[in-house]
């Protein structure tokens, strides 16, 4: 039987950075950005890598895009080893990074896009047509003749996005492509990503994000990553299904509350996060079942807190992340999740 061909495949992929310690001159400490990561992305998949800042998402993309060598382990893109043959890998890939400031300020949007297309050997007539199409898609058609030093951050990101799709790459890496964008623009770009995949079923996208909504809406499968480790990998529905037997609640509470003290002692509270929201304490709870809610509410009452609202929610990827890691996507302890663009 023939082995399965993946667009992207990593085995035990590890990257360790040695960084200078501020406190000890000359000494270096090691940071494991990626820790024995195993991933297999099939051709035609829109695969998401979800994790907080510093989880190792960008390191993963840098290795796959041949910008960084792994410390150990292997990575294959389009069936080609990224260390042994980076030149061949580059024929198959494209990349867009959120917040990048590439291009030359004195050139217009379309001139910048044309310049990058030349590095891929694209013909003049094809390029002009493609640039026109893409600028319309991202809503930058009117800005085609604008020099890019006049562009806002959002407009610049739209241009970068267009650049990534310009060559219709076989495998596209999108590293936080909607970061810093307004809701409407983020929605437009997400819609185009989905459409592009539908129009090109043989293409593959690996998208990193810390917006759960984005991963949930777009991705066929999602890998959840934290501190360089892949913690889970499945379809968003399957990941959330694992939480079906538990009960997920969101509570808003008024009053002086120490959630740590209150919730730690209650049996059946599997995970919780808390954040201050609009003058209230917001508690996100993953409970063994609905019955555990009663001692929680009693505890709140007992500490003089007042329940403002209570919502039983369907599990989200954020809840999956909290269940796996013990804290929200933003950082340890304070959950709330990354401030994502609304749907």
């Amino acid at each position, binding site marked *: 039987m023939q082995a399965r061909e993946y667009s992207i495949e990593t085995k035990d992929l590890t*990257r360790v*950075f040695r960084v200078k310690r501020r406190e000890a001159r000359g000494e270096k400490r090691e*940071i494991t*950005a990626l820790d024995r990561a195993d991933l297999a992305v099939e051709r035609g998949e829109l695969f998401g890598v979800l994790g907080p*800042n*510093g*989880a*190792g*998402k*960008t*390191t993963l993309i*840098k290795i796959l*895009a*041949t*910008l*960084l*060598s792994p410390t150990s382990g292997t990575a294959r893109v389009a069936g080609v080893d990224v260390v042994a043959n*980076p*030149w061949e890998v*580059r*024929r198959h*890939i*494209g*990349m867009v*990074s959120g917040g*990048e*400031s*590439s*291009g*030359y300020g*004195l*050139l217009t949007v379309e*001139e910048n896009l*044309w*310049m*990058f*297309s*030349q*590095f*891929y*050997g*694209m013909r003049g007539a094809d390029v002009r047509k493609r640039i026109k199409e893409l600028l319309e898609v991202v809503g930058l058609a009117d800005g085609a003749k604008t*020099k890019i030093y006049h562009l806002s951050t959002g407009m610049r990101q739209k241009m970068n996005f267009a*650049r990534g799709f310009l060559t219709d790459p076989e495998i596209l890496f999108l590293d936080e492509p909607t970061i810093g964008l307004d809701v409407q623009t983020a929605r437009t770009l997400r819609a185009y990503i989905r459409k592009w995949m539908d129009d090109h079923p043989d293409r593959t996208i690996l998208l990193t994000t810390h917006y759960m909504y984005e991963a949930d809406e777009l991705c066929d499968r999602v890998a959840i990553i934290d501190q360089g480790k892949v913690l889970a990998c499945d379809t968003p529905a399957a990941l959330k299904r694992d939480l079906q037997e538990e009960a997920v609640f969101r509570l808003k509470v008024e009053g002086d509350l120490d959630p740590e003290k209150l919730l730690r002692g209650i049996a059946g509270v599997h995970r919780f996060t808390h954040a201050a929201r609009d003058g209230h304490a917001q508690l996100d709870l993953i409970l063994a079942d609905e019955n555990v809610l009663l001692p929680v509410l009693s505890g709140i009452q007992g500490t003089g807190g007042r329940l403002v609202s209570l919502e039983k929610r369907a599990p989200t990827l954020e809840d999956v992340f909290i269940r796996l890691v013990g804290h929200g996507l933003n950082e340890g302890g304070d959950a709330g999740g990354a401030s994502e663009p609304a749907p």
Partner: protein
Amino acid sequence: MNLRREMKTFLRTVIGRAYPRVIGMRREKSWMLFEVLLPLLQVAAFVYIYQAIGAPPEFTGFVVLGGAMTAYWMNVLWSMASQLYWEKETGNLELYIIAPTSRMAILIGMAAGGIMTTTIRAVGVLTLGVLIFRVPMEVTDVPALVGVFLLTLVALYGLGMLLASLFLLWGRQAWHLANLLQEPVFLVSGFYFPVRALGFLVALGASIVPITLGLDAMRQLLFPQMMEGFRFLPVGTQLGALAVQAVVFLFLAHRALRYFEDRARREGRLTLRGL
């Protein structure tokens, strides 16, 4: 078919990367002040010193020619050697690296664009200098003069490409190196006087920078009588040395680029972004 396609991509890359330099000059007219008029002031300072001490008028020619060639050295240092450092800072470098094209094509594009724009600046300085200071020139051998000039440029930009590859790894430290190279080279390469005045050995050492040989040869071809007493090496020898330098620097640049790119990738220095 593949070779043909790769050749086309190589050529398109060269044109694509040269474009921002060429178009940039057209769009930012302030270069005329900074790149022509200001260097002319420096030239004027040396010209008046020579005139004050009663030096022959050919010395004015030495200075004007040196002043014109200054533009190339500045361009090689700041727009070739240190360019990849800036490209890394702006995020362009990672897009160059992941593109399925030759890095040499990108550097050649930078060089071609740089040569085109710098030549306009140099011609500006030369023309104004010759007209204002009434430089007496006697062109003895036009083909040799053109040959020396072109070979100087190829060797000089080859050196720039070689230095550019170092910046892939050293970043800001290499930027300091460029800073360090600027003024000393003006001195030891004899931008404002015949390099022979520094002694044969110093001139020989300074010849690692192609502009040293190029300037001396061009002065011999433009001011033959006055250069009789200051000739560093025969023009033929300098032409040969420049040809060798052009080949060697381009070859080394090609090898160094590949080596430093691999090393920078291993050490995580190709990009700036976080984890």
